[in-house]
């Protein structure tokens, strides 16, 4: 595993206040299939909640209801204790929710800077898009995220999978999100880049962001997350404190769909 096992959580998450995000009884079906069935998860400031589950468990679908990509059939979303209406991605951005999608959602024909600022272009005094300024900002943030990244004028279709992922991550963290959704953000990254994302998550967490992290790597989840929520066939198996369970406990939840005995 690339992530150092010695990494200690800086301080335990304070869960006494109102949660940053509170998803209550979210359900959504496609045709007859209940992709997400009455799932409730919450997220506190400065917390990383891992979402785990087999392929097709409904993880991406759940977070897409929060990011505005899908319209939930039932359930409520509370943000800072107030009920939120999220009908499209624009609404989600208004609540400072940023998302790294599993599919990355990049316009392949545009360059990194155009993708990073898509929908939020920097403009000059005449109201025209300021490509030079956007490229300068992109160079700055990529310098932090992936210093090996050089292809600033190529369309992102010419980038490697990991480079594309870096662009998607940069887009999500550039705009001062309060709530960050990361759907398998390191799936295409090399060990060094994965470590940089892990460091980034820790830094953002210290700044008080709430992060939903979808990841198939149980060790990674145990290292980076405070709690883990496990889904199976669209239903929530349970939410556990990662320090209270072993890797095998989490695997049992994912595969067998049952909560560890010492907790239930």
């Amino acid at each position, binding site marked *: 595993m690339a992530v150092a096992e010695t990494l200690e959580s800086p301080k335990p998450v304070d869960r006494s206040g109102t949660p940053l995000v509170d998803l209550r009884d979210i359900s959504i079906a496609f045709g007859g299939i209940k992709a997400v069935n009455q799932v409730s998860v919450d997220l506190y400031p400065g917390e990383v909640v891992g979402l785990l589950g087999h392929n097709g468990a409904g993880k991406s679908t759940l977070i897409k209801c929060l*990011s505005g*990509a899908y319209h939930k059939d039932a359930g409520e979303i509370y943000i800072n204790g107030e009920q939120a209406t999220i009908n*499209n*991605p*624009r609404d989600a*951005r208004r609540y400072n929710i940023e*998302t790294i*999608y599993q*599919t*990355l*959602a*990049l*316009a*392949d*024909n*545009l360059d990194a800077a*155009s*993708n990073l600022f*898509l*929908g*939020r*272009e920097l*403009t000059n005094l005449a*109201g*025209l*898009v*300021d*490509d*030079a*300024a956007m*490229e*300068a900002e992109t160079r700055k943030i990529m310098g932090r995220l992936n*210093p*090996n990244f*050089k292809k600033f004028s190529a*369309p992102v*279709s*010419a*980038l*490697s999978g990991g*480079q594309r992922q870096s662009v998607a991550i940069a887009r999500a963290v550039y705009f001062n999100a309060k709530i960050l959704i990361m759907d398998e953000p390191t799936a295409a990254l090399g060990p060094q880049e994965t470590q940089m994302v892990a460091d980034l998550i820790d830094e953002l967490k210290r700044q008080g962001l709430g992060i939903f992290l979808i990841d198939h790597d149980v060790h990674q989840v145990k290292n980076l997350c405070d709690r883990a929520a496990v889904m199976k066939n669209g239903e929530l198996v349970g939410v556990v404190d990662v320090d209270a369970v072993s890797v095998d406990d989490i695997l049992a939840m994912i595969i067998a769909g049952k909560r560890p005995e010492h907790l239930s």
Partner: protein
Amino acid sequence: MAETTANSDAASSEPAQKRGFVQSLEIDIRLLGMIAAFIVICVVFNLLTGGRFLTPRNIFNLTIQTVSVAIMATGMVFIIVTRHIDLSVGALLATCSAIMAMMQTAWIPQFFGLEIGHPMIPWITIIIGIAIGTLLGSFQGWLVGYLAIPAFIVTLGGLLVWRNVGWYITNGQTIGPLDETFRAFGGISGTLGAQWSWIVGALLAAGALYALMAARRAKLAHQFPVKPMWAEALVALFAVGGILGFIAILNSYQVPERVLQRQFAARGEEVPEGFTAAYGLPISVLLLIAIAVIMTVVAKKTRLGRYIFATGGNPDAAELSGINTRMLTVKVFAIMGALVAISAVVASARLANHSNDIGTLDELRVIAAAVIGGTALAGGVGTIYGAILGALIMQSLQSGMAMVGVDAPFQNMVVGAVLVLAVLIDTIYRKRTGDR
């Protein structure tokens, strides 16, 4: 793609690596290819016609014949880039032309009480015509964007509907003669003359130089690599030379003596001894240049343009980035409708009256121009200048073959084959360069 950027200090020196002549110029290779193809066509026809193809007179005619299709082709670029198609432009042009012809010859005189020949008539006509074109375009865009009917179907329906709406409005009759000021937008009956043509040419050249300088300054301000100075100068030289050369050619097309005699006779004067006048830049071509500049700025420098290309590249990503892609579709079709109405002004003004078959098959010419100009039907790729050059190449082929005496059926066969060939070359080129 191979990544060979292990040492990060190579970052700043990367662009200074050995670069070929063309790379240093930073000109689109596809543009160079199209210009080369155009030059070859011109030279071949010039040889075949014994020098008649590249006379100022023929070049003048070529440009005014290209304007109507070229104006629409710039709008078709946006349509195709967003993965749609518009088969209705020729028919919509007929409807707009019919409405504008009726307005200036019948409706405005009847309902506003302005006499035929009143100076306000052409302007009211044009404004209402463009408004109607925009509205009808938006309506088609709404059907595509909000009701999710494929653009192919909506505009195929539009092709049948608008062609016959046009027929219905005029009762199938030819309407004319059109207003004299209105006709000035057609080409030969509205030109700037030598002096104003030079002034416009100088302004355009200055604008091109300013744009090149501004781009360089913006890059320098952020310490980005810039072209070597010689490359910058060469591009500037070609731009200015091209603009002024074009004006010079148009200015060397003299107004024939009998036309001058008629003009002077209308004022009750004699043509002075040794008097000559040049046609110069046609107003319709000036209109095309203005539209080309505006559409290029929209495409490259506005949010709208950025969203059009993003949506073409990946509609889902655009939607997830907060772009209202449905509204965007309406806007793109609205722009197309406005440009169709402007083309209707140019096309009917050139013919001096409205006839029912105006714009027939224009949809195919317009789509072909955009595609020959490098617009990819898969979406996300296309340029305004490419589409205009595409229209020019098609018109040159058609005119050239007519001058050589090729029969009409063969002309169409050649144009069709060239369209397919152009796309084939483009496909091979994209595969080679690894572009999509």
